[in-house]
């Protein structure tokens, strides 16, 4: 059976473990290769899929040495007997038990093909949006209950309404694709695997708020995503989805990609706006809010990648369909990212409300090392450490807040029993001292003091007194910082102390 078509992910994670070499080997062997996105089963990468009349059959952890064997397979049973075979990928229980909305096309379609996008339901949301008035589009998004996925969870519809109602000849849509949190990669994967969804979401947002220009601010650590997005934007212009007259509607929308320059703080929206304007990425005091005075002082809708990528589906199927998923005030799905010391890391998209334990144990399969899990940090470097005993917490905004934690951008970093929580607390302070924009003292100086204080605690010097000092310091940072960088750094620190006091009170031999 000659191979007709194989899918070898071009996703950066797959590439990081050899997918480019595997793709080249398939091409050299005469196969026709599509560089799809990743299915999000990252522990299986490179996960190669071979097209067959029974569907796309997957092969895990393929190496160059496996390629000839796969190419020369004569029959289905040959293929199915290959040691890395995981069966028909679309029937894999890890995928079929998820509820993929924002990630529905990722890994399935060819991200370079605008025709493929359309064939898989693309542009339906934009077409419907253009048939509605801006206020109707905003209402649909409000009805969906969609909240910002960048971390703060602010209702997208309310933000858009403010931009829409602020009169100005020039307005902007700005996409926050800075994704600086450790343990998060969903923005990257959706853009690399399905870039047209972001373009469609931004074009709908532009129509809704009355913007004619859009900017995507991508971190420089993501060159694959930048390339995928630029290629897709070019195709969208060619096919009339961007430009002076979007789909003949008379609306004009131009979309630009801008690359960040290695500063975590530029993920904070006002810092990002300054960076887009070509300035130092320092945090602006609020008010004014960006929705009223954003880029170059004009009304600007700033949203995270995943927020914008949920919009096409909301417009295509209606806000009510999206709101039917989820729980309480957390509507729709959340794209969870399983990372760190985890056996089965990757993307799990499910309605809000699933427990952390189900994500870590059932989907994640426990730790990579096989040792008992001790803690998970949820929501990035500013998120709390949750002890294994607390993993039953439901993953929604309110329940997490009640548990003294936050969902953030949905990243989950698992640690096994060997983790030293005093060291992780020290790192939180160190990270803050490195990445602080320097504008306010509690953050800039407090974080450096924090590192020194934890160093003394680790060395066993006046532990009780230094713990009190550290607590005071955290209090000052929480109350006195201009933004969440300084304001939330105490979260990982204090949660580590609260749940793992033994790591901070080790016996040190008197000397």
């Amino acid at each position: 059976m000659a191979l007709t078509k194989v899918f070898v992910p071009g996703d950066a994670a797959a590439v990081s473990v050899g997918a480019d070499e595997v793709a080249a080997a398939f091409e050299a062997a005469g196969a026709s290769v599509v560089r799809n996105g990743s299915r999000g089963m990252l522990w299986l990468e490179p996960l190669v899929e071979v097209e067959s009349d029974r569907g796309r059959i997957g092969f895990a952890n393929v190496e160059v040495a496996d390629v000839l064997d796969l190419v020369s397979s004569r029959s289905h049973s040959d293929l199915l007997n290959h040691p890395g075979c995981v069966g028909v990928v679309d029937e894999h229980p890890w995928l079929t038990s998820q509820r993929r909305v924002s990630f529905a096309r990722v890994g399935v379609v060819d991200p370079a093909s605008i025709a493929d996008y359309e064939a898989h339901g693309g542009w339906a949301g934009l077409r419907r949006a253009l048939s509605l008035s801006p206020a109707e589009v905003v209402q649909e998004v409000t009805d969906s209950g969609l909240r910002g996925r960048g971390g703060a969870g602010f209702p997208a519809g309310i933000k858009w309404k403010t931009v829409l109602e602020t009169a100005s000849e020039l307005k902007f849509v700005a996409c926050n694709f800075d994704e600086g949190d450790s343990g998060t990669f969903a923005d990257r994967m959706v853009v690399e695997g399905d870039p047209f969804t972001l373009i469609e979401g931004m074009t709908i947002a532009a129509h809704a708020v009355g913007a004619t220009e859009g900017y995507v601010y991508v971190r420089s650590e993501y060159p694959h995503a930048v390339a995928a997005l630029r290629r897709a934007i070019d195709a969208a212009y060619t096919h009339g989805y961007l430009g002076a007259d979007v789909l003949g509607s008379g609306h004009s929308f131009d979309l630009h990609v801008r690359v960040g320059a290695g500063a975590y703080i530029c993920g904070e929206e006002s810092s990002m706006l300054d960076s887009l304007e070509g300035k130092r990425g320092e945090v602006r005091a609020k008010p004014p809010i960006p929705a009223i005075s954003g880029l170059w002082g004009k009304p600007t809708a700033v949203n995270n990648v995943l927020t914008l990528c949920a919009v096409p589906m909301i417009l295509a199927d209606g806000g009510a369909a999206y709101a039917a998923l989820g729980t309480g005030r957390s509507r729709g799905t959340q794209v969870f990212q399983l990372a760190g010391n985890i056996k089965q890391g990757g993307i799990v998209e499910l309605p809000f409300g699933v427990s952390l334990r189900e994500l870590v144990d059932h989907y994640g399969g426990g730790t990579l090392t096989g040792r008992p899990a001790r803690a998970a940090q949820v929501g990035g470097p500013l998120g709390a450490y949750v002890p294994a005993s607390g993993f039953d917490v439901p993953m929604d905004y309110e329940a997490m807040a009640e548990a003294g934690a936050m969902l953030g951008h949905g990243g989950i970093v698992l640690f096994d029993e060997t983790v030293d929580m005093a060291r992780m607390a020290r790192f939180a302070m160190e990270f803050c001292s490195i990445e602080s924009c320097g504008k306010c003292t509690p953050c800039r100086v407090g974080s450096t003091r924090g590192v020194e204080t934890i160093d003394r605690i680790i060395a066993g010097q006046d532990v009780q007194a230094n713990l009190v000092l550290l607590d005071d310091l955290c209090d000052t940072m929480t109350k006195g910082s201009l933004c969440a960088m300084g304001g939330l750094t105490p979260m990982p620190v204090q949660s580590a102390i609260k749940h793992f006091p033994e790591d901070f009170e080790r016996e040190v031999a008197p000397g």
Partner: protein
Amino acid sequence: MTTAAATDRVALVRAIAQQHLTERGPLLPVLHEVVEELGHVAREDVEAIADVLNLSVAEVHGVVSFYHDFRTTPPAAHRVALCRGEACQSVGAEELYAETRGRSADLGDGVEIAEVFCLGNCALGPSGTVDGRLHGRLSADRIDALTEGWR
């Protein structure tokens, strides 16, 4: 002290800046291109950029110094950047980083070992880049293999 090379450099930098003049907020794209073409942002580049973009030298300098990406010294011949983010730490990144720094000279002449905080490859850590290319599941042995040609 204007050598031909220095004049060429300034001309190139001015041309880069010129190309971005029609964009809104062109400074970051200009600086990125200068680093890409010339390896770093030199003192004279700052002046040329400020002049073309009609900004003050202090303003351009302030931006250059704010961002990690805009280096002001020529880059090393080779660069290994290892992730120190929490997810990579959970699978041994701190040890790998310390150990790799300790033996950078063994990897080859003019090798720079740098730290980064998250490359978006947090399920396949420890992650890092070797001369700009992303790698996952790094170990000391893997770094040896990837840098073999440098020795």
